[in-house]
């Protein structure tokens, strides 16, 4: 085959190898930045601080986004969304994460609880649960991990016993983010006796957090308040209309949720903003010029790998290995950038709060980055997925 310039003209009309998101996405990014500038106080570090006012900021901001039609940009129009492209959805995720997720805990309802209900819910569940999420009125938490079922999630032992036309749920969940502030929980429990196939019998329930028998105990951690909790379910009633996706079909829901989580948290965006903000405020230390340049490249590579996963979603051909590769790159980039910024801050790294460099955002980022390679599936699990793909049936 000889390269002939005349054959280079694309016949499809689509532009290949083009990284421009387009005018609509650029306009969306501009609107979001303006809204953040208008609504979010300088130095805001997210909704999960010790200051209850920060949660109120997030709740107000969600309502404002909903009023502007921006909260559910990527949701289908039939569910009250704007039917935006995956790239517009990416812009929203980037701008939100970059600015310390001013939607607070609601990102979870928007990113995966809502879409899971769209995919697996009954008509009644869609009518009941989707409008409050779209309006920015409700916070969800996810009851997945247990003390003896972390990476091996399918080993969960929380049980749902038949009781009349419903169920009685008993068990313990752990690492549950936002459980204290959430109104609803997507709860994974096992129905029937355990079989050789651990995935069988797992069932998803949608239960209100104020139901009798549910108690929450915050876990003190380096991440700060609200990030980690234990939840105890003691003979908690769930009705037949609170099962999501059918009895025994919970693993399908979980897989979908985890796939969304792997690409939904765009940590590279905050790395990008903090590298920019620190350089603007403090300058790049001479000692770190080369390492800083490497960090910029790492952030770019992480972003491009995330875009590859989004591209596969857009084409309707998402691959687990692609999402895991993106997550490996993004989470490790998060920690590398946190370390570069701490090296730059030197002894001021130990300071926190508004008087610390970049209003404490670097200190906050470093602490939170330590969880990046654990949350939403450890990077060891991601490596297992990638190697399984590489080795195929040859292992």
């Amino acid at each position: 085959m000889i390269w002939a310039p005349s054959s280079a003209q694309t016949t499809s009309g689509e532009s290949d190898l083009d990284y421009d998101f387009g005018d609509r996405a650029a306009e969306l990014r501009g609107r979001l930045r303006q809204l953040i500038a208008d609504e979010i106080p300088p130095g805001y570090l997210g909704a999960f601080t010790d200051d209850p006012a920060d949660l109120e900021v997030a709740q107000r901001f969600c309502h404002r986004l909903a009023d502007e039609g921006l909260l559910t940009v990527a949701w289908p129009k039939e569910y009250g969304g704007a039917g935006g492209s995956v790239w517009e959805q990416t812009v929203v995720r980037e701008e939100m994460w970059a600015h310390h997720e001013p939607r607070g805990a609601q990102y979870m309802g928007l990113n995966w609880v809502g879409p899971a209900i769209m995919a697996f819910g009954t008509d009644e569940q869609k009518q009941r649960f989707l409008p409050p999420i779209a309006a920015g009125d409700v916070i969800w938490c996810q009851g997945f991990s247990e003390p003896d079922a972390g990476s091996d999630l399918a080993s969960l032992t929380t049980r749902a016993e038949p009781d009349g036309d419903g169920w009685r749920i008993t068990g313990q969940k752990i690492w549950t983010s936002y459980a204290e502030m959430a109104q609803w929980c997507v709860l994974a429990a096992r129905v029937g006796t355990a079989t050789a196939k651990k995935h069988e019998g797992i069932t998803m329930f949608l239960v209100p957090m104020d139901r009798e028998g549910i108690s929450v105990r915050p876990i003190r951690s380096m991440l700060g308040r609200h990030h980690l909790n234990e939840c105890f379910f003691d003979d908690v009633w769930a009705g037949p209309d609170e099962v999501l996706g059918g009895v025994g079909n919970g693993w399908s829901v979980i897989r979908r949720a985890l796939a969304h989580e792997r690409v939904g948290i765009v940590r590279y965006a905050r790395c990008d903003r903090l590298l920019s903000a620190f350089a603007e405020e403090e300058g790049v230390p001479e000692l770190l010029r080369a390492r800083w340049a490497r960090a910029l490249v790492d952030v770019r590579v992480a972003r491009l790998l995330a875009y590859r996963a989004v591209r596969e979603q857009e084409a309707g051909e998402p691959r687990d290995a692609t999402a895991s590769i993106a997550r490996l790159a993004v989470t490790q980039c998060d920690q590398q950038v946190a370390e570069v910024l701490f090296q730059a801050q030197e002894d001021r790294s130990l300071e926190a709060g508004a008087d610390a460099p970049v209003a404490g955002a670097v200190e906050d980022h470093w602490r939170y980055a330590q969880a990046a390679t654990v949350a939403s599936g450890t990077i060891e699990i991601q490596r297992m997925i990638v190697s399984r793909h590489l080795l195929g049936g040859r292992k």
Partner: protein
Amino acid sequence: MNPDLPSEAAEYGAGAARAFASLGGLDAARRAEVDPAERGRSVARALEALGADQLDPRADPDAAAAAGELCRAAGRVMLPYPVVPLLLRTGGAPLAVVGEGRLRVDHGDLFDEWRVATVDGRAQAAKPASSRLATKLGPFVVDLSPGGPQAEPAHRDVAFHLTLSAWLVLGVIERAVELAVEHVSGRVQFGQALSSFQAVQFQLADAAVGVEGLRELCRFTLWRLFADPERCQPDALAVRLHALETARTVLRTTQQLHGAAGLCDEYDISILCRHVQPCLRLPFGSERTALELAGAVERMGFDSLFPHGARSAVG
């Protein structure tokens, strides 16, 4: 937004891969080490048959993508020929990027006239002035002598050179991971395939992340060369830096996974690791590249979601 290659470029790259396979794949590099004149015969003919002399990556994005795929295919077999300089010839003279001192060029003996340029774009004519180093790590490396400065700066050509060299490295590490997968799948120790050990699996996974990251960055950088030609030097240095650092870790991992066999020239991984060294070391390695990148970012900015350095294209 579409990070996929034009199908014509992918097809051209596949054709190049078939042509290089018909040369014997990495055996072409082995033969050239024994008989360096082989480069100017069968290898040059294969490139001519591919129309590489008609392909100018500077012409348009599609041609650039085709050139990238050609370089990737060449890297997979460490084709013994200066493919990147050939693609960037001006008036018949191929282009090499050199350091401030010695004008050291891989395959420098294959052309009588060269155009050489420093990373900051200063260009001059040059011609071969020494015999081949003929070492394990630089079998075809030749020093050139300067032939007088050229008025026309070569900024854009240098950016293309750095970028297409990264595409070549992409081919090298992509093939290295494939070779490692084949080896650990077939090699049995302690009664089981090496691939059944999680420590081995995790190393392969990390290598795969390196390959895929470089693949995406190579594509993005080609786009940047046309989207912002006046400020693409940081992008070219970035992909060069990432190629060097990824190659170091991926080649070390994949050679290690071969055990002692990985050091033997009967095994393809050894040829890949040896013959790619001039591409990784000339004109300089990763530490100086990182400093060059830092300076370029400070002068010209770095395209990203937020402003970096002098300016940002997105802001």
